[in-house]
């Protein structure tokens, strides 16, 4: 998602970027679409209740153990 879309998303839900669900930068799905740390990705899920649902995740670095 581009920056404008992200700003819109955060405004509609009245949340900050950090409050989005996260996904690690080395997640296989993120690597497949080429997302970088700090990007927000839009996920279209097959939902059992709504048929199709959109979700968002913030790409972040995997913390070192």
């Amino acid at each position, binding site marked *: 998602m581009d920056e404008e879309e992200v700003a819109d998303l955060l405004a509609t839900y009245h949340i900050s970027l950090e409050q989005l*669900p*996260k*996904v*690690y930068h080395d*997640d*296989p*799905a*993120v690597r497949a679409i080429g997302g970088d740390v700090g990007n927000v990705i839009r*996920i279209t*899920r097959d*939902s*059992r*209740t*709504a*048929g*199709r*649902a959109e979700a968002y*995740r913030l790409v*972040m670095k*995997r913390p070192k153990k």
Partner: protein
Amino acid sequence: MNNDMEQRIDTLVLPYRTREDLKAILHERDITDEEFDQILAMVFSEYEKSRIEPCEAVGVVAAQSIGEPGTQMTMRTFHYAGVAEINVTLGLPRLIEIMDARREPSTPTMAVYLLDEWTFNRDRAREVSWQIEAAPLHEFGDITIDMENMQVLVLLNKSVCDRRKITVDEIFETAPRKIREKRHFRDFDVEGDPKKATITFIPKNRESYQNLFQLAEHVRNVIVQGIDDIERVVVRKEGGEYILYTEGSNLKDVFEVEGVDTARTRSNNISEIADVLGIEAGRNAIIQEALSTLNEQGIGVDVRHIMLVADMMCMDGEVKQIGRHGIAGEKESVLSRAAFEVTVNHLLDAAIANEVDELNGVTENVIVGQPIQLGTGDVKLIAKPINLKI
């Protein structure tokens, strides 16, 4: 219904399925614009009613809705799941396993689906199963210990090798390599004779009989074909196609076997799915596994409760357990954490770290004896003394 109406439905802020249903129902009917507006108004009011209220305690509702039917579940169910002799943990133990986000389930299994060319032919399905099932060397021939010359002799059975589509050369290459991977400190020499299909293992240490017998044991059990983690494969026919059920799970390697349908193949190892296919796939697997475990016991729990649990577990990009090492252990509030498990440790750590509890949550307020911030406790009345004449 005309095209204009259909386009209007598409732009509505309704769930995808509701819009599709609406289109399907209205498709064949003759309706005027006025009627259409009325229908939309009613659909919207119904939709608004079906939505959850803001500030509703969804977590508590979900916990109750899963917890109560959970008490009805059979405590210990270790029976065969109907799938050809493969034992699968079911019932409450399985549900606990899912919620605890174990690295490895107690009975990992896979259902391997095959691509069209393989799935309708029994023999070809069997061929794929040989590529998957771990087969030790002793299944391919006779192994004898030659005590006089201090060596282990392997005489390969060519017809078995041909039937299982593995060449003698391949065995020559893999067997010593795999043994060395496991036990590199006890070295040995290998001599192979492709014409007679024999392999001779000669230990470097030529004095010890114990060493020789240990080497023979390794030779016997070395896995020369298939994937190490998959102990057994059962081919079953379901609805016209052949499906492989496995004992043991290894998604990554199974995906590389020719003929496997990577889109439909399933595993019950959730953390493995999250590692190989990503966190979103892990979320789906949690929902699928939890729901099928409950439904198998004849317990109906709404998906939305399970979806909430799965969402919480996958919030931070990895599958976290529900418990003191996961969600409950990462709560902001000290009192809330202390109320869960290992009370003293949490209080002690919090005291050392000079933590402050803002008393925002439910648990904290119950502990200190204040009204909680939910339901009637959330409403604050402020009296404004205007026009108040007695």
